[in-house]
């Protein structure tokens, strides 16, 4: 019997439009592109798994092919699940750690000073490249001293006193690398008379999925569905996220890739800018001072996939005085852990080139984007500081 989980490949009309819009296929001819690696090859793979082609691993799961496809083929999903189903498992130290942002984070935040020093130190980077195949040119995100969760403990009482509240799924990045974004979110929502609650959470699973650790991703997903689900049931509150990729995982990857039932949370989940739009529409707009700066907005691929870019733009347009430039939508090439791998580093840089060029041409004061990995990539490759829309709002509110 052929096991067919995702038969959307059958809707493919072979038009090749997906391949035209695939940033990886554009950057390297080693990747045959979404049409070939997705619907075309799937027909062969389901008959004979031996026919799987290594070139699949080039796909960064940006999902741009799915946005372009006129026939609703879930191309990126087909490719990701083929990676797990048909590739022979091979242990790799690097991928093991890259996949476990939470493990890495909870270790690194204890020794943040040393870790940040070491990862910026060239001989160490040289060794990382040599033995782990982590590109020495890549600049590492800095680790915070302690976790966001730890910092929040002192806040908890105050936040619980608000009449209106939300549950915040902060994700690994805020927890280990960037408390400021979490604090900015609290500041913005508090200014709108909304308290921020945390619940227990695990890494959303995006890096696990990308590195082929499906079973671990499933475990994390089940944990999050049950933990967030319980909080929602008990409180009736909405869940917000500030990371577009965490949001995509909770909403899209859990049911479509991990084949888990996320109905306990999916209708209570909002990406932050969507939540803000709804509040603004109700008249709950915080007082803001004019921001006389030029901001270039870059829309992350995963936010595009969820159709949420309009919400972020709408929120940014509410900031008085902001000179907003919306950049032509291009992939930055980072794709989470993709750009941390030597074998994909050049492709990743080549993909991003177009975006870096248009940012430089726009010559803004700051760049705005909703995704942490876009932020790393853009900060490494352009002279500009990159901020989350929530942080910009927090600045306007101060």
């Amino acid at each position, binding site marked *: 019997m052929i096991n067919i989980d995702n038969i959307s490949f059958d809707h493919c009309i072979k038009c*090749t439009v997906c*391949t035209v819009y695939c940033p990886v*296929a*554009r950057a390297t001819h*080693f990747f*045959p592109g979404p049409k070939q690696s997705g619907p075309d090859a799937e027909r062969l793979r389901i008959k004979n798994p031996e026919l799987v082609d290594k070139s699949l691993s080039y796909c960064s799961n940006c999902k741009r092919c799915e946005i*372009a496809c006129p026939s*609703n083929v879930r191309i990126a999903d087909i490719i990701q699940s083929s990676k797990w189903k048909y590739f022979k498992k091979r242990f790799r130290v690097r991928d093991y750690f890259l996949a476990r942002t939470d493990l890495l984070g909870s270790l690194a935040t204890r020794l943040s000073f040393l870790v940040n020093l070491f990862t910026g130190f060239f001989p160490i980077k040289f060794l990382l490249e040599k033995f782990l195949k982590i590109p020495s040119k890549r600049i590492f995100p800095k680790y915070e001293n302690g976790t966001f969760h730890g910092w929040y403990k002192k806040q908890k009482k105050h936040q619980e006193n608000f009449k209106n509240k939300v549950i915040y799924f902060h994700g690994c990045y805020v927890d280990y690398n960037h408390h400021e974004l979490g604090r900015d979110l609290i500041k913005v929502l508090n200014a709108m008379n909304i308290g921020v609650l945390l619940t227990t959470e695990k890494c959303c699973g995006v890096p696990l999925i990308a590195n082929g650790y499906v079973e671990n991703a499933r475990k994390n997903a089940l944990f999050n569905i049950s933990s967030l689900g319980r909080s929602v049931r008990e409180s009736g509150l909405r869940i917000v996220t500030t990371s577009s990729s965490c949001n995509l995982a909770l909403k899209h990857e859990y049911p479509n890739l991990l084949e888990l039932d996320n109905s306990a949370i999916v209708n209570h989940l909002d990406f932050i800018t*969507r939540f803000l739009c709804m509040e603004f529409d109700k008249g709950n707009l915080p007082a803001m001072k004019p921001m006389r700066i030029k901001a270039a907005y870059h829309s992350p691929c995963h936010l595009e996939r969820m159709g*949420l870019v309009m919400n972020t733009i709408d929120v940014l347009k509410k900031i008085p005085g902001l000179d907003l430039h919306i950049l032509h939508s291009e992939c930055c090439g980072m794709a989470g852990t993709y750009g941390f791998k030597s074998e994909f580093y050049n492709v990743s840089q080549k993909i991003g080139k177009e975006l870096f060029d248009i940012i430089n041409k726009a010559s803004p004061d700051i760049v705005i984007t909703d995704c942490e990995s876009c932020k790393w990539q853009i900060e490494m490759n352009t002279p500009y500081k990159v901020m989350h829309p929530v942080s910009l709002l927090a600045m306007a509110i101060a």
Partner: protein
Amino acid sequence: MNYDCIIIGGGIAGLTCGIKCLKEGLSCAVISSGMSALHFSSGSIDVFGYDEQSRPVDNPFNYIEKFTALHGHHPYAKCGPDNIKEALFFFKDALAEEGLELHHNSNENHFIISTLGILKPSFFSQRSVYNEEIGGVFGKKSKIAFLNFDGYRDFYPDITIANLKKNALFKDTDFISGNILFPDYGSIKKNPFEFRSVDIARIFDTSRYLEDIAKQIKNKAAHADIVCFPAFIGISNFKKHHEALQELTGKLIYEIPALPPSLPGMRIDNALKSRFASLGGVFIAGDRVISGVIKNGMLENVRTANNMNEVLKSHCYVLASGSFFSGGMTSDSASIREPVFNLRVEYSPNRGDWASDKLFDKNSHKFIEYGVETNDSMNPFGADGSSISNMFCAGAILPHYNPVKDACGSGVAISTGYCAAKNIVNRIKGSKDRK
């Protein structure tokens, strides 16, 4: 979030409508679930190509006036001749602002050459397909070269030439055919299955091989006046590279739209989206409108697949979701439907009438003429039979015309999209005046 206008479908009809709305000062969002039919079209804008006897039409505007007097159901009849011309030149100007020029033969059609060497009438073309100089060369005693890129499998110059030779227009023409080697072919060859014109275009867009290609053209087509290729001159630097190549070779460079995805079509798609965005429009890609609430003859809101628990609202809505090919219409064994709102559809209840037995029937297939019925203001009818006053239909979703047989697809899409926008502007401004 509230808009003046939400447009469902980001093809040529939806985007033309959106650009016109924005220019009139309305706020506007387009929701589009996948890339549009532009990716499959020639990139030339057909206005009216063939008459009822399938003979080429010389002056499409004169013909439309005569034709619509007899066929009141045709979408052009609902626009009126002045609006059609206004719409087409509005469209031309919008593309020109993005650096994409359209050329035309005053009020007459010109012809374009297909990969199979068939001549097709069209009205607007890009500079590499029609301009005055090109028009002057064809049909004279001239030398025309058809060149292909080594390894490119979607174009066979000898077939093109064999068919053109059958045409009286080319009886005095000398033909040359040949291949040139694309400099990066070595690396493209690693992936021979996807060697499409888009792949060539991408590399050509970088300017790296301009001079090399020019040299090869001069070698292979030394005496030709005009050199024809499958479309390959990129997207972002199209005008610059076309000019440079003509200068370096001293020849006219002609592009034949090749198999999809169509480069000339993508140039238009790109230019329209970029015009729409720079006027402040919001384009939501990859999302699909799945339902809407119709009450008291008005569409109140719509819902999309990605955000099921939130509704989107606007004063007016445009349905420009295309025909069967784009999912604007669907069918099963017994009926033909408009899948999102279940609007009234015009079709024959007898299934045998839907399609001809011959795949390439000269008279095309009947189903192409089926679509959403509207009144003269382009408002569709709901399930209860009454018209929906704040909703307008445009483009391939409309019935009573045959874009294939008549060669009028893009012209109808542009005209109806433009007229829908005008109707919306009147409606919204009218209601503001009343307030």
